[in-house]
């Protein structure tokens, strides 16, 4: 067999499998949506299995490159997308928006993300970026009879296109001034320093990507899009694309642009500080739990960027660990939001949770675990994520960043703990509908991993270490 085939199998599975599901959906007669969703989850699992089995490779003359780093990021993307699909299964049916195209679009978005993650050329980076963005715009508007969802889709589309424009402009500047888009040749050229044109290009690339990870001050779209999109789609936005773009940021900033660390580090530091501060302060006044989680994700991206600002092996490892922990907390929390339904209607305000602890102690405890973990309270996993990025920042001499991080996580703890206070100490009768088993499974699995991470942290730390070494070893 051709040795270049195995690394391609996950991508082929996702692309061709997505098209096959599309055909099945068009041609078959009954209950197409759930068949399609289960098929998509199966394809994601298969793709993950094949990607673990594949060796490292440089594909298509240096357009794509797979390594331990890309496999680590890919598996997080697969996990996030599969969790979002599980959540969508029941939600879409109850909201009467179950369509077989939904999982197909998720698959194509995931295909875009794995191309992005394994890009070794600015062109493949852009094509992957565009593929995932376009699929996500459509998913944001997929509840097409809801005004808010349509608004979210349109807003995301307009602002996302602006980000794409900035990104491609930056890429064109970098190409124009260096003459190449290949990461290896770029690194070789930039090793001797870079002119102002390339630096301006890098800044534009950085802004385009910061937009996608919703790092402040490029976060404006996040709360509205998170609030308006159907909740499973919000769960997807909060996990897979964030992780893929963050992995891409690591790969591109420390790969081809790694020699210019001194020139772009300041920008990452500012992005990180602003995101952490905004995530902590702006979430305080929120009444809608999806908006709260949106601001919380902005804050989390700030912490994850800290590892990139460090620019060291330990920094990359810390960011990778943080992302994995964030992924689990995030889809767990969104599973809880999906489960918030009263009399067939989704409810989204924090006040609706009042009295949940007496009525549904398991649900309340799971949400409490996610809130504690996001606040970074030991011994839950969120604490260790923060610990790793802070120590990486301090070891790289970025003390200001670490101090700001500690202060903002203390401020942020206020609003996470307020959710717990509402559930446990406020009087009320939520009267939530029975939760579907898929949603309960995601909630339970997320809570279990978040709780037990402290007992067996070894495998994740080792995997992140190996992945970081594969990136900048």
């Amino acid at each position, binding site marked *: 067999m051709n040795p270049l085939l195995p690394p391609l199998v996950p991508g082929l599975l996702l*692309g061709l499998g997505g*098209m096959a599901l*599309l055909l099945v959906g068009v041609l078959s007669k009954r209950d197409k949506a759930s068949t399609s969703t289960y098929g998509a989850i199966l394809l994601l699992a298969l793709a993950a299995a094949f990607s673990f089995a594949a060796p490292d490779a440089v*594909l*298509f*003359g240096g*357009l*794509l490159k797979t390594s331990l780093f890309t496999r680590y990021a890919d598996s997080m993307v697969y996990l996030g997308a599969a969790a979002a699909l599980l959540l969508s299964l029941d939600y879409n049916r109850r909201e009467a928006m179950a*369509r077989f*195209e*939904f999982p*197909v*679009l998720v698959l*194509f978005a995931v*295909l875009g993300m794995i*191309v992005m993650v394994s890009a070794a050329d600015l*062109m*493949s980076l852009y*094509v*992957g970026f*565009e*593929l995932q963005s*376009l*699929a996500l*715009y*459509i998913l944001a*508007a*997929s509840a*097409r009879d809801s005004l808010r969802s349509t608004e979210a*889709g349109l807003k995301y589309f307009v602002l996302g296109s602006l980000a794409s424009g900035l990104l491609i402009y930056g890429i064109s500047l970098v190409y*124009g*001034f*260096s*003459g*190449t*888009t*290949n990461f290896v*040749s770029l690194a070789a*050229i930039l090793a001797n320093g870079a*002119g102002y*044109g390339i630096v301006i290009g890098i800044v534009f690339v950085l802004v385009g990507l910061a937009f996608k990870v919703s790092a402040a001050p490029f976060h404006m779209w996040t709360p509205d899009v998170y609030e308006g999109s159907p909740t499973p789609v919000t769960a997807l936005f909060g996990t897979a694309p964030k992780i893929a773009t963050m992995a891409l940021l690591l790969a591109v900033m420390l790969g081809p642009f790694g020699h210019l660390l001194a020139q772009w580090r300041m920008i990452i530091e500012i992005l990180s500080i602003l995101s952490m501060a905004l995530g902590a302060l702006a979430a305080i006044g929120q009444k809608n739990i999806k908006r709260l989680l949106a601001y919380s994700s902005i804050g989390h991206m700030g912490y994850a960027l800290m590892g990139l600002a460090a620019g060291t092996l330990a920094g990359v490892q810390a960011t990778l660990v943080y992302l994995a922990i964030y992924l689990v907390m995030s889809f767990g929390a969104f599973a809880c939001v999906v489960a918030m339904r009263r009399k067939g209607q989704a409810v989204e305000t924090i006040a609706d949770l009042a009295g949940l602890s007496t009525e549904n102690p398991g649900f309340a405890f799971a949400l409490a675990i996610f809130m504690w973990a996001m606040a970074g309270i030991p011994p839950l996993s969120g604490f260790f994520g923060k610990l790793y990025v802070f120590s990486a920042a301090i070891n790289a001499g970025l003390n200001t960043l670490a101090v700001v991080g500690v202060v903002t996580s203390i401020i942020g703890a206020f609003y996470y703990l307020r959710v717990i206070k509402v559930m446990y100490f406020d009087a009320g009768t939520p009267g939530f509908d029975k939760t579907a088993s898929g949603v309960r499974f995601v909630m339970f699995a997320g809570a279990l991993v978040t709780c037990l991470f402290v007992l067996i942290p070894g495998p994740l730390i080792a995997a992140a270490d190996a992945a970081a070494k594969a990136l900048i070893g």
Partner: protein
Amino acid sequence: MIPNLLFDVFSFILLGSAAMVVTSRNPVHAVLFLILAFINAAALFLLAGAEFLAMILVIVYVGAVAVLFLFVVMMLDVNFAALREGFQRYAPIGALVALILFVELALFVTGSTIAPGAAAARLFPTPDTITNSQALGSLIYTNYLVLFQLSGVILLVAMIGAIVLTHRDRKRAKRQNLDVQHARVPAETLTMVSAKLGAGAPMPKPNKETL
């Protein structure tokens, strides 16, 4: 001699039709002059040896964009008189744009470069021996095949998106359903109402028919 003459002819028509696009009073005429300008520009590209760009210009701009303009002009009720107003107000900005374009053109003509090393680092320098359609084709279908395919997937996603966001199954279409028709019994469709003489009878509500 002949290429020079052709260049003069095409560029003269190009400039003339470009001027007509801006000045003609009838918007349909303006669009038609725009098409003429595009075709002459394509001919200029051909003279310069860029036959791929010439083809793309004709296919994309004349074939799609100009026709789209024509549709917009003819289908939508745009008040062109109102659009024309305020020439004096916008003239300074227009002059500024023209000046910037002129400076850029001058930089290009004088042959100034800002990144001298970049041309040398190019992966695929412009080939001398084959036409540029051939050169582009061999690059796209060999070195960059995967990007070409992925661009196709992007277009597929766009198509799925257009269908997902707009297509609705029409349940209201009136089709004959023989099974349901045959299964109908008189009790469902007929109601006996006793009417008083000279007073009429209240109209019973008909059952909703599901045919």
